[in-house]
């Protein structure tokens, strides 16, 4: 096998005759394939004509007469460009504000001294234990009082501060040698300049790791946007998609669901494929596993 040969050549000399790395490689291929199956099925199901009947729906073999009918149906039922725009606004809006808040909060916890610092930090961490669903009603009444009910800003609001992000940035900032900051201090750099020119550039991997986690979780969030948004033209992708997938009394049109799902995940998937290397390296360097 060519692949095995190549692996053999690439392997470090010392491990070339060992079996374990090869087994590991095989296992990875198997896992990758298992991971790929739902995506393959989604692609196949999207292109399958309704005339194939539901018997073939679960098959991975593509249909001989592929059709775009399902895509057209999904496209007609849901206003996907609008949903995509809304989701993008929500995710980037949250992320941009989060970058500011977690940098400042993380810096405060890592480098500043103030009364009750440890206590406040633990309170921050405790917030991670709360299930978000628990806060739906209080958050919603607050959002309504602020006049943000049925607005995208209302969807974003509760996530502007992130306990996880603060914790992550605190760890990243603490790992940066204080000597660098001292040197900048001697040169007369202000607090903001020190953060901007020393701490932020040196923590980029942590920022990108956080960005991935933040964007994927808000991209996938369903219940909260469902609560805040009423106007059909303000729906994000998840709420739009669930028009196909959430049923109570038992029927489903798999082709349309597959097509709709494909439209929803495609942007994230493509981004991931393009920036794959950077994503992985940022997780490795920031120590999230």
């Amino acid at each position, binding site marked *: 096998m060519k692949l095995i040969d190549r692996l053999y050549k690439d392997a470090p000399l010392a491990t070339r005759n060992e079996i374990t790395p090869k087994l590991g490689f095989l296992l990875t291929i198997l896992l990758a394939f298992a991971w790929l199956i739902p995506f393959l099925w989604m692609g196949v199901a999207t292109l399958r004509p309704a005339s194939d009947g539901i*018997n073939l729906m679960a098959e991975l073999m593509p249909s001989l007469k592929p059709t775009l009918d399902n895509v057209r149906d999904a496209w007609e039922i849901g206003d996907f460009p609008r949903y995509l725009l809304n989701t993008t606004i929500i995710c980037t809006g949250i992320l941009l504000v989060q970058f500011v808040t977690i940098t400042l909060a993380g810096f405060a916890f890592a480098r500043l001294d103030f009364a009750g610092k440890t206590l406040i930090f633990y309170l921050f961490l405790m917030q991670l234990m709360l299930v978000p669903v628990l806060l739906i009603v209080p958050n919603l009444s607050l959002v309504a009082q602020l006049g943000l009910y049925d607005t995208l800003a209302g969807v974003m609001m509760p996530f502007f501060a992130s306990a996880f992000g603060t914790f992550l940035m605190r760890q990243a900032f603490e790992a940066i040698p204080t000597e660098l900051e001292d040197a900048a201090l001697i040169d007369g750099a202000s607090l903001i300049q020190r953060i901007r020119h020393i701490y932020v550039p040196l923590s980029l991997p942590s920022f990108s790791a956080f960005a991935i986690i933040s964007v994927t979780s808000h991209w996938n969030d*369903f219940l909260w946007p469902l609560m805040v948004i009423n106007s059909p033209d303000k729906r994000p992708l998840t709420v739009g998609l669930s028009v196909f997938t*959430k049923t109570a*009394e038992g029927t489903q049109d798999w082709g349309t669901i597959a097509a709709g799902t494909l439209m929803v995940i495609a942007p994230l998937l493509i981004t991931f494929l393009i920036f794959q290397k950077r994503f992985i390296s940022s997780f490795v360097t920031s120590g999230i596993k």
Partner: protein
Amino acid sequence: MLFSRRLMLGLAMAGTLASALTFPALAGEGPTEIDLYFPVPVDGKLARDMGTLIKEFNDGHPDIKATAVYTGSYDDTLIKTRASIKAGKPPAAVIMSANFLLDMQIENELTNLDALIKADGTTKEQFLGQFFPALQGNAVINRSVYGVPFHNSTPLLYINADKAKEAGLDANKPPQTWAELTDWAKKLTKRDGDKVTQWGIAIPCAYDYCGWMMETLTMSNGGRYYNEEFGGEVYYDTPSMLGALTWWNDLVSKFKVHPPGATPGPAVSTSFISGNAAMMMLSTGSLTYVRDNAKFNYKVAFIPRNVRNAVPIGGASLIIPAGVEADKQKAAWTLIKWMTSPEKSAWWSRATGYFAPNMAAYKTPDMVDFLNKNPDAKIAVEQLDVAKPWFATYKTVPVRKNLEDEVMLVLNGKKQPKDALVAAQKAADETLKPYNAETSLKLP
């Protein structure tokens, strides 16, 4: 100058903005804007049908502008409605799962509709008289009207007539008792060694559906499952329910004619359509889907009995939440009456497979025509004679889940029926405790 020109300008703009935000309603004598929350209980294409319906309403009522707001499943719709009431932004009307009305009434979340009915110059009796009597149990609480039936269902037995013929059974004489159904299921199960290639019967068990099917089986086993008069009692640990769950479990583990595990509704309908299951118990709400997709002859029949013929009502009613302003209430009432009128409810029934709660719907020419072509749509209506209200208590969803969690354990082979029901009863009693402390246990 103390105030710079820029500041003045800024203040003026802020003032305009603030007044625009605070008094949008005073800006013009536009139509009354109302929201209608709706779940999608079946096929996603219905979201499009709902859009058609609301557009037609708006075109015919220039003084009202209704917006259909999609709100997820029945359970999600309850969460969203409650959250929006608490946030002070209740929608004017909601298509709400019929069995949530009691719980909402207990929590003071519903508008009593009596006054609106009276203002129309009709009596409660006249108003309710339009609907099938079986539906009133879930719409009337303490002799006041709180909901208007919109689309309703009963469970049905769906049979693949071709497979039945193959097995030497006549689908025109469907099984009428559990014994006959067990016998049919055995004959319709095909095995290849230990592997089952065709299941005799499939019954869904996922949140919401599972409780409904359990209620169906318990009722046809003579039981009553909850106290219809009072929201604080459920009868999980009773012989009628034990018998029902034991039989369901026997189909799975003893006779091996029912796929193991808790299967969601869409998986059941898919396996029926694909011929993988020869019979299924499912809502009449899935009838249009089956009619459109089945590539074989199918029959629809009453749910077989063990002790008596009885089924629960399912589906949804229209409600007006508490705290809706008077003008919006009036607009919502107009919308509700329009949606439940014979023509509209008949149209919706044909689109979905739900039966139309308004009895006059069945006298409209389109419907008579439709029933002649699709006699299977009559079965659910005929079954209404033996239909009873749908499970409704204080905190309906948690109390229902107390049972569902245990039933799922049984179907997954992890628990025995008796142990499961004892545990479910205990959990439900715990959930109902606060209400009982406030009502039945509170002594003068």
